[in-house]
């Protein structure tokens, strides 16, 4: 972008021009580009739902019934929308977590594990101190959740920064480890003695419950998510550190030449990312379940990847897409009544991600070629 502006300056003001060229120029707002940029994700969603509708039809289900049922349970009325917001809270936070890491091309696929790390630490605080901390209970739980998520993310962070161990694989393998550790705790030391042998911890003292809005289940975590979105947005777009991350994401070599401390930034990014996911985990145990139990997450950490990608790592976009996908996750619970596996929601997510990728790839060509026919040819035959 910088190069573009420089060359633009050069062309508008030759070296011998008496008028000094403006050093910085705002890029002109390109309506066409913006319109297409917005249209592409929407079109991707439509195509994904059409394709999956076809799968439904081929397997003997009526896609219209399924989709209208899904819509009803996600956005049908106030209660449904409140529940959708409830699902959106962890998606906003984990989506931001993933976006922070992705912005520097660090593929943190472990938001799911860091979510659990946060939930476990928050539960430990709630079970240890009961209500003894009074109004400090919630802040201490938040801190514990974020620190725990950050530390869990620092394991792959350290391995990547110092030994160049692929963070995709390490974060993923660690997801399985912490999920097993959570199972160990709720089946073993933390099991509620009065829980009829169900794998869950005792219910937290009310001091450890996040307050809710009115009589809905929407809890204070929503505010955490929105505040986090603002912070992440400012950090990524308006700070030197955010700029360093962007440079690292574009080219590690360039970052090294510029004297950016890569090792330190990898560690910081992973810790930041893990802390956000950990806060999401804290929000779920403290705001919804009020205890640690199985099925705490229907895969928020993975859905977060799509949320972040569909929003193109833009924080406002993440909040919007998280609400949309909160609706999708929420409607997954309605699937069971139709005799459809809740894994169906994952299928839709995979299809959406594919169509978004295709949309982006074709859009990139559009910027260069501006020729629809050529783009369609590319889609079918590849670029020669």
């Amino acid at each position, binding site marked *: 972008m910088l190069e573009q502006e420089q060359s633009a300056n050069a062309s508008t003001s030759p070296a011998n021009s008496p008028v000094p060229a403006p050093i910085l120029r705002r890029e002109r707002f390109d309506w066409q580009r913006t319109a297409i940029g917005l249209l592409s994700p929407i079109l991707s969603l439509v195509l994904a739902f059409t394709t999956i509708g076809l*799968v439904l039809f081929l*397997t003997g289900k009526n896609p219209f019934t399924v989709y209208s049922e899904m819509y009803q349970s996600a956005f049908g009325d106030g209660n449904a929308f409140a529940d959708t917001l409830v699902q959106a809270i962890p998606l906003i936070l984990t989506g931001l977590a993933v976006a922070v890491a992705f912005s520097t091309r660090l*593929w943190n*696929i472990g938001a799911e594990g860091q979510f659990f790390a946060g939930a476990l630490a928050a539960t430990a605080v709630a079970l240890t101190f009961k209500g003894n901390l009074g109004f400090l209970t919630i802040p201490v739980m938040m801190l514990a959740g974020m620190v725990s998520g950050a530390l869990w993310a620092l394991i792959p962070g350290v*391995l990547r920064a110092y*030994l*160049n*161990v*692929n963070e*995709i*694989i*390490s974060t*993923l*393998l*660690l997801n*399985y*480890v912490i999920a*097993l*550790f959570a*199972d*160990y705790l709720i*089946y*073993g030391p933390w099991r509620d003695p009065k829980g009829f042998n169900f794998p869950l911890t005792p219910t937290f003292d009310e001091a450890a419950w996040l307050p809710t809005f009115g009589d809905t289940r929407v809890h204070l975590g929503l505010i955490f998510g929105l505040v986090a979105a603002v912070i992440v947005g400012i950090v990524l777009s308006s700070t030197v550190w955010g700029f360093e991350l962007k440079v690292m994401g574009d080219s590690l070599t360039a970052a090294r030449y510029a004297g950016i401390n890569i090792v330190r930034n990898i560690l910081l990014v992973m810790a930041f990312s893990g802390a956000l996911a950990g806060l999401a985990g804290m929000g779920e145990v403290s705001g919804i379940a009020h205890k640690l139990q199985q099925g705490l997450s229907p895969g928020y950490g*993975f859905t977060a*990847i*799509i949320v972040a*990608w569909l929003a193109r790592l833009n924080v406002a976009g993440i909040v919007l897409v998280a609400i949309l996908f909160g609706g999708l996750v929420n409607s997954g619970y309605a699937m069971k009544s139709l*005799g*459809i*596996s*809740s*894994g*169906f*929601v*994952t*299928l*839709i*997510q*995979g*299809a959406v*991600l*594919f169509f978004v*990728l*295709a949309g*982006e*790839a*074709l859009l990139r060509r559009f910027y260069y070629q501006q020729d629809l026919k050529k783009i369609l040819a590319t*889609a079918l*035959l*590849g*670029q*020669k």
Partner: protein
Amino acid sequence: MTLFGIDIVLLLATTVAAGTPVLLATLGAILNERAGVLNLGLEGLMLVGALAGFVGTYTTGSVWVGVLTALLAGAAVASIHAYFTITLRVQQVVSGLALTLFGTGLTAYLGRPYIGIRTPETFGPVNIPLLADAPFVGPILFKQDWMVYISLALAFALYFYIYKTRPGLQLRAVGESPATADSMGISVTRTRYFYVLAGGALVGLGGSYLTLASNPSWLENISAGKGWVAVALVIFAGWHPLRAILGAYLFGGMESFQFSLQAAGSDISPFFLKMLPYLLTLAALVLVEWRAKAGRRQSNAPAALGVPYLRQDKN
């Protein structure tokens, strides 16, 4: 022979069986990556293979039809990844993740009616004459099922193919320097498509072993991270088919070891035992990178791994 209440021969025999699906998936991934295409969709592909293998066997009653179905399904689903990474040239990491989500969701949706049904025919042990009676190694290596023998033969065949044949050289050229391969008249696109599909078929085959031998029925998420383990083992194996055997059996060993410990009534919580295979895989990966860092071993990663090829790009 027993040690701490664990029968060593039985442990090693189950090690081989537990390592087989991972070995097949790792071999498939090596083919993908040798051609320069990173495939993080292994977990999804294994699930697709597992379900396809089960459905094929369930419908016809023959495991071999199941195997064929799994091969075809693996290749078919891998073709999505091929289209996205080779033709559309999108981020290979994200396309792979999408493939995993897609495969996980698709199998959960389509597999629902099959939950709780036993596989009608499974792979049974086939004794190799003479060798099966050998002490110690006989029961470990030569009283296994067909798929174990096939996976081992495949590992050796792929080693020979990749390093000793002309098409193998072309495969490596495409993964190391596609521009050079292109100038030699090798079609980078066609080669990559072929190996992404072939690799996908092998990963599907690995998945089918889960429903046709390891656990003869269909379960949601039956692969339980084995696809990701295979992604890690490719690096551990240094993209070498024979070292993949070592990696896969190391994983299989840890898996059957934790089962044997549970069966032997160990005091350690089974949840911790179940962590062992994942931790071991991570440790193996760390070891490889640590050795590479210490300069004792060059990284064998194909130079063009994860990089889309476009002719006018300058390399």
